[in-house]
């Protein structure tokens, strides 16, 4: 209920910002605080976004010397208006995770004229590099590579892979599929089936069930998110096929939900690839000058967790949700 209340508050705040061009005055304009405007997607979008929003709020807190303003929307034009509002209001920094990659030129130019520094996080925008300081993003293709390299390092005699894809065409699907497709093409791994379950757990279960029913051999399940991996495991359980550490089938997932990492810790799964929503600290460090950007595009380093090495503190630190 508390969360709901907070959400509502944030929503109302964002909405009033949109309507009033963010006329809200910041109380004491002490020179010590850094004013940051964040334009983001709403936390209800996904567990990832929820963690992302929380991370932003935690890092850009008053204790850390920030004055944080936020605006959440799934729509690009509403995001643009919100950014415009922040510029008018005179923030020091503008942080953007855009709903769409286009349409931002003008707003970013205005920000530049007003001397506001722009950081992009999570998602890239199609604009001239000079218009922003840096972009802190995930590299989905790299997530795939990390996972596939881990899989290769298991040195199995043969790789018979059930590949369960996310919604076709999404960034995460394209990135996470790429590395595996290379292996299929090279012949180092054998594709038993490659199907999209469009992020749907139940669908993933059906896909694995149909492979089991057909009697084909497989020893790896590569699911492009945790939910689908869970669906796949449910099918294995019902068919009496062991999985995880020392099991017949290697189970791989992505996103590092806390519950998924706990499966790893219990040895029921083998691998979970991170898709880090934690860009706030990197940006904060850049703002405060603790670090300098080596290039415009900063790849947020993402881990892959192995069931054999994961610890409870990993779960506490990197796990999403509860």
């Amino acid at each position, binding site marked *: 209920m508390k969360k709901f209340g907070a959400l509502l508050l944030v929503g109302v705040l964002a909405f009033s910002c949109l309507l009033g061009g963010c006329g809200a005055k910041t109380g004491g304009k002490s020179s010590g605080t850094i004013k940051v405007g964040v334009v983001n997607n709403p936390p209800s979008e996904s567990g990832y976004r929820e963690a992302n929003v929380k991370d932003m709020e935690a890092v850009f807190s008053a204790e850390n010397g920030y004055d944080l303003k936020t605006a959440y929307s799934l729509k690009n034009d509403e995001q643009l208006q919100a950014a415009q509002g922040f510029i008018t209001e005179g923030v020091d920094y503008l942080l953007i995770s855009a709903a769409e990659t286009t349409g931002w030129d003008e707003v970013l130019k205005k920000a530049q004229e007003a001397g506001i520094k722009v950081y992009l996080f999570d998602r890239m925008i199609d604009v001239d590099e000079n218009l922003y300081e840096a972009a802190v993003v995930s590299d989905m293709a790299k997530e795939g590579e990390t996972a596939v390299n881990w899989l290769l390092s298991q040195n199995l005699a043969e790789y018979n892979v059930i590949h369960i894809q996310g919604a076709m065409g999404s960034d995460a699907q394209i990135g996470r599929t790429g590395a595996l497709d290379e292996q299929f093409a090279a012949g180092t791994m054998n594709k038993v089936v490659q199907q999209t379950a*469009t992020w749907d757990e139940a669908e993933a279960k059906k896909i694995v069930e*149909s492979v089991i029913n057909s009697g084909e051999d497989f020893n790896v399940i590569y699911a492009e998110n945790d*939910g689908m991996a869970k669906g796949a495991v449910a099918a294995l*359980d019902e*068919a009496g096929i062991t999985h995880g550490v020392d099991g017949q089938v290697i189970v791989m997932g992505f996103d590092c939900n806390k519950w998924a990492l706990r499966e790893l810790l219990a040895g029921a799964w083998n691998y979970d690839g991170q898709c880090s929503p934690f860009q706030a600290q990197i940006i904060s460090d850049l703002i405060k000058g603790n670090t300098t950007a080596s290039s415009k595009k900063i790849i947020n380093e993402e881990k892959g967790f192995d069931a054999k090495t994961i610890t409870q503190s990993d779960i506490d630190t990197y796990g999403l949700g509860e």
Partner: protein
Amino acid sequence: MKNAFKRIFGTGLGQLTIPIISILLLVVFNLIRDPSFFSIGIMHNNDGNIVLAGNLISIINGASELAVLAMGMTLVTAACGGQDISVGAAAAIAGSAFVKVLKSAPAINGGIVVLAFFSACLVAVIFASFNGTLVAVFKIQPMIATLILYTCGRSIAYWINGGATPTVSSPIITGIGSFIPGIPVPTPVIIVLVMAVLFKLLFHFTSLELFTQSVGINGSAARLNGINSTFIKLLSFIILGVCVAVAGCIGVSRLGLINHETLLLDVEMDAILAVAIGGNNLGGGKFKIGGSILGAYVIQMLTITLYAMKVSSTDVKAYKAIVIILLVVIGSPVVKAKFGKFMGNVMKKNKKVPVKGAE
């Protein structure tokens, strides 16, 4: 045998002909494609229980939520002459409520699960009553009325738990969603059976069936015969609400997790289709729950067949659409009438018709 043949074909296409023929066609097709398609294996699952497995079990098991929803949808269709398109979203809400109660308990035991289920029912019935009131009292088209919940239902489901995919794990939940130790048949299949029996009992011990059909066929006449049609329509939605809660809880229990975005996604269209394939008139009136259940199995059998053929799941929808268009066209009044005429001519050859007055 001859009698059975006559019963099905004699008076044109009976209500259950289409789903039965579809199932037979799919069975034959699969047997030709892969004779071992329907083989049922007995194996131990990871909890050490002896369970049945195979495509047939996957089909019957996988269609459970759809079958339960189709039962409720049939009733709403019959009484209101329209469909509830919010069942998927409502199931996500019910499932979220189910998980919410389970997670707020210190430990999951039988009592908590029952409490959670009743909470899910309560929540689903509240939302169903909202839909029902719009339809029965304010006379809004069912599809329009339920569009509201269809749009916002999954956001409401998100608010309930506040997280993307909360999980619950307990042997009881596994028992509901998968297998109860000692029983080799998947529990969802048993739940469908129980629901079907409950419906049968409901129709046996009440006159709901007669009243619902009367309201659906001729609301004005039903009212003048003392039937409270507002109540009957509302009741149909409430019963659907219970079905929604059951389906939502099965869905959640299968994996021990609620993903409000994907739980029973797009199930409403399949449920409506199941009702249609079952030979029920989508404009209301006469209905057969059994037809809708068969319809649900037809849809699931189709899906599993396509999976077994390794058709890409993005293409599955297109293939499904083609088959369903065929089924619905075959079941249309026009084709039925033509077929009935044809069969009538065939029958006439060996039977003399008595001369009698007709208007």
